C-alpha cells in the first residue's frame, strides 16, 4: 500500500478512532496508525481480547491473567535457588499440579540480589494464590523462602506480601484468551477421541 493509499484508508475509519490515535500516538508512522486503527474499529477483535482486572491486582485477557513480581533475595538466596533449579534440571514440572498455571519463570536481577517471578494463570488472583498454598506449599516455601521477609505460604499475611512486590502489567495479550489449562486438556482428550473414532471408521 502506498502512503497515500494508507492515508485514504485511515481517513475512511471512524473519526472518533482517528482522533484517539492522533492524541495517543501522533508521532507514529501512518502504517502503525493504520494497523492500530483497524483493530480498534473491529468490535469483535476488541471484545475477544478485552483486558480486565484479575481481581485484587494484575491484568486479565479473557480467562488468562498475568502476575509479575520482583522481590529482594536474602543473602545467599540466589545460590540456594540455583542449586535447587539445577537439581531439577530447571524443570518445574511439579508445579503442574496447580491446574490454573500456564507458565512461570524465575529470573535473577541486579547481580542476583533480586528475584523476578512471572507467570500466566487462569482466573482470579485470590483463588490462584490459595491453590498454590493448598497444592504445592513446600515448593512455594522453599523457593520464596529465599526472599527477604517471606511470611510463609500459610501465613495470613502472605497475600499482602505478594501484592506489595507485584508489579501489574502495563499491557497484556494472550493468543487464545479463552483456552484455560483445563480447556486445553479437555480439547486434547476430545481430539484424541475424535481421531480414534475416525480411525476406527476406516
Amino acid at each position, binding site marked *: 500500500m502506498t502512503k497515500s493509499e494508507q492515508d485514504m484508508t485511515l481517513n475512511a475509519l471512524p473519526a472518533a478512532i482517528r482522533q484517539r490515535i492522533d492524541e495517543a500516538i501522533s508521532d507514529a508512522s501512518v502504517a502503525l496508525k493504520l494497523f492500530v486503527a483497524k483493530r480498534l474499529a473491529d468490535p469483535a477483535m476488541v471484545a475477544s481480547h478485552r483486558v480486565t482486572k484479575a*481481581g485484587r491486582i494484575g491484568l486479565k485477557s479473557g*480467562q488468562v491473567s498475568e502476575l509479575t513480581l520482583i522481590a529482594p533475595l536474602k543473602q545467599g538466596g540466589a545460590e540456594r535457588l540455583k542449586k535447587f533449579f539445577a537439581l531439577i534440571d530447571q524443570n518445574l514440572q511439579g508445579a503442574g499440579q*496447580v*491446574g*490454573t498455571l500456564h507458565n512461570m519463570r524465575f529470573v535473577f536481577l541486579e547481580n542476583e540480589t533480586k528475584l523476578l517471578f512471572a507467570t500466566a494463570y*487462569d*482466573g*482470579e488472583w*485470590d*483463588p490462584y494464590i*490459595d*491453590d498454590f*498454598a*493448598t*497444592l504445592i506449599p513446600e515448593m512455594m516455601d522453599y523457593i520464596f523462602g529465599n526472599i527477604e521477609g517471606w511470611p510463609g505460604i*500459610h501465613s*495470613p499475611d502472605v497475600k499482602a506480601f505478594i501484592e506489595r512486590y507485584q508489579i501489574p502489567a502495563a499491557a497484556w495479550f494472550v493468543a487464545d484468551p*479463552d483456552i*484455560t*489449562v*483445563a*480447556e486445553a*486438556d*479437555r480439547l486434547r482428550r476430545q481430539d484424541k477421541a475424535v481421531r480414534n473414532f475416525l480411525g476406527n471408521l476406516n
Partner: protein
Amino acid sequence: MVFEGIKAWFGVDIEFDKVQAAIVRMRPEPYFGTHALLEIRDARGGREVLRRLAERVTSAADWDKPRPAWTSLAITYPGLVALGVPESSLASFPENFREGMAKRAGALRDGGPNAPANWEQPFGTGRVHLGLSVYAGSEAAWRSEVAAYEERLAEVSGIEVLGRQDFGAQPDSVNAFGYKDGFTQPKVQGSRVSGFPGDGREIKAGEFIFGYPSETGRPLLMPAPDELGRNGTFLVFRKYYSHVAAFNRFIHANAKTEAERELLAAKIVGRWRSGAPLALSPDKDNPAIGEDPSRNNDFTYADDPRGLKTPLSSHIRRMNPRDTKLKALSDVNIRRVIRRSTTYGTHLNKGVLVDDGQPRGLDYLAIGVRAIDTLEFLQSEWINSGNFMGVGQEKDPMIGLQGKDGTFTVPGVPPRYLRGIETFNTLLGGEYFFMPSIPAIRWLGDLKN
C-alpha cells in the same frame, strides 16, 4: 471431669451462651419465619434498639434441645457507622464487607438482570442497617416470636422497618421449583453437632466463628475490639426470584416423556424432587432415600468421575464437589459455609409453562468467617464458570447468570449439549452482614459519644 474430657476430645470449647443460635441451629422442618430489614435513623435510637434486642436474640446455649423459635440479628457496615462505632474498629473490618454487596457487583459477576441498578428496594441503597430473622417450627411459635421483637422495636424512635418478608410454610419444605433442599451443612469442630453421614470431615470452628482456631491452625483475623469481634461471624444475604416456568419450559423443550423430563430436571439439580441424589438413585426418584437424613446425603463421586450419574455441571456437584478431582482450585474445606437458606412464596407445579407473576424464590443465607470471600469465590469460579470442572465457560444451571448462548452438558454416551438455557434465578438484592455475639450486641448498645 466429664466436661474436661469433652473439651479435650474436641480440642476447642465454643462459648455457646455467647454465640447466636442461627450459627448452630438447623432450619426446622416444617419451617416458618420472617426476615426484616431495618434502618437506624439516629445512633441513640439504634443503640436503644440493640439494648432491647440483646435480650431477645437467641443464643446457642442448649442448642441441642428443641426450641419452638429463635431470633437472630445481623448488622451491615452502614449499620455499624450509624451506631457510631469508633473509626479504629470500623477500619478493622475487611474491605469487601465495608464496600457492601452492591459495590462488589464486579467481583460477584452481578451484571445484567442481576445488577444492583435492577435490585428491589431497599437493597443496595445503604439504608439497610439491621437484619432481623425469626425461624420457627410452627405458625404459632413464629407469630409469637415476631410479636416479641416487634414489641421491643415499638416505642423506640430513630429506627424504621424498611421491609419485612415472611418465608416458609411450604408443604414438605420444598423450594419454589418443587425440590426438597437444604441438605449439606459443614460439621463444625467443637459444636458437638453430630451432623449426618455425608457432611464431610469436621471443619475447624474458627472458619465459622471468630476467635477459634481455623483451618490454617490459628484464628482468622478478627474485627476489633475483641468485645465486638469474638464469637461473631459474617452473614451473606441474597434474595432470588425463581423463574420456575422458564425452568419447566426448558425441561419440556428438551425431553419428551414425563420420565425423561424428571430425569433431565434431576440432571440439572443433581437430586430428584424427593431429595434423593442421582449418585444413589441414578435412574429414578427414590423417596425413601430422599426423606431419610441418614441416607440422602451419604455419598461420594468416587465411582462417577465423568459425571455419567451426576453431571459435573449439575448444581449440587458444583456447590459441593466432595471428592471430585477438580481441574483447578482444590481446597474445598475453606469454601464451606453454613447455609440457612429459606424459600418464600408457593412453588409452581412442574407442568406450568407460563409464569403466574407471583413472587416466589429463595433467600440465600450463608454464615461463616469467610462467608463473604466464599460467596465472591463461588460467584466467579464455581457458579459463573465451569473451568474448575473442565466444562469450559458453562455456568451453574440453577443460579448462574446465563448469557445468550448458555449451555448445559449432560455427560453420557453420547453426551448431550443442551442449548438455550436461561437464568432460572435472578437476583433481587442482597447485603453483607456482620453477625455479632450476644455480648457484642450489648457492647454496641452501650456505645457512648
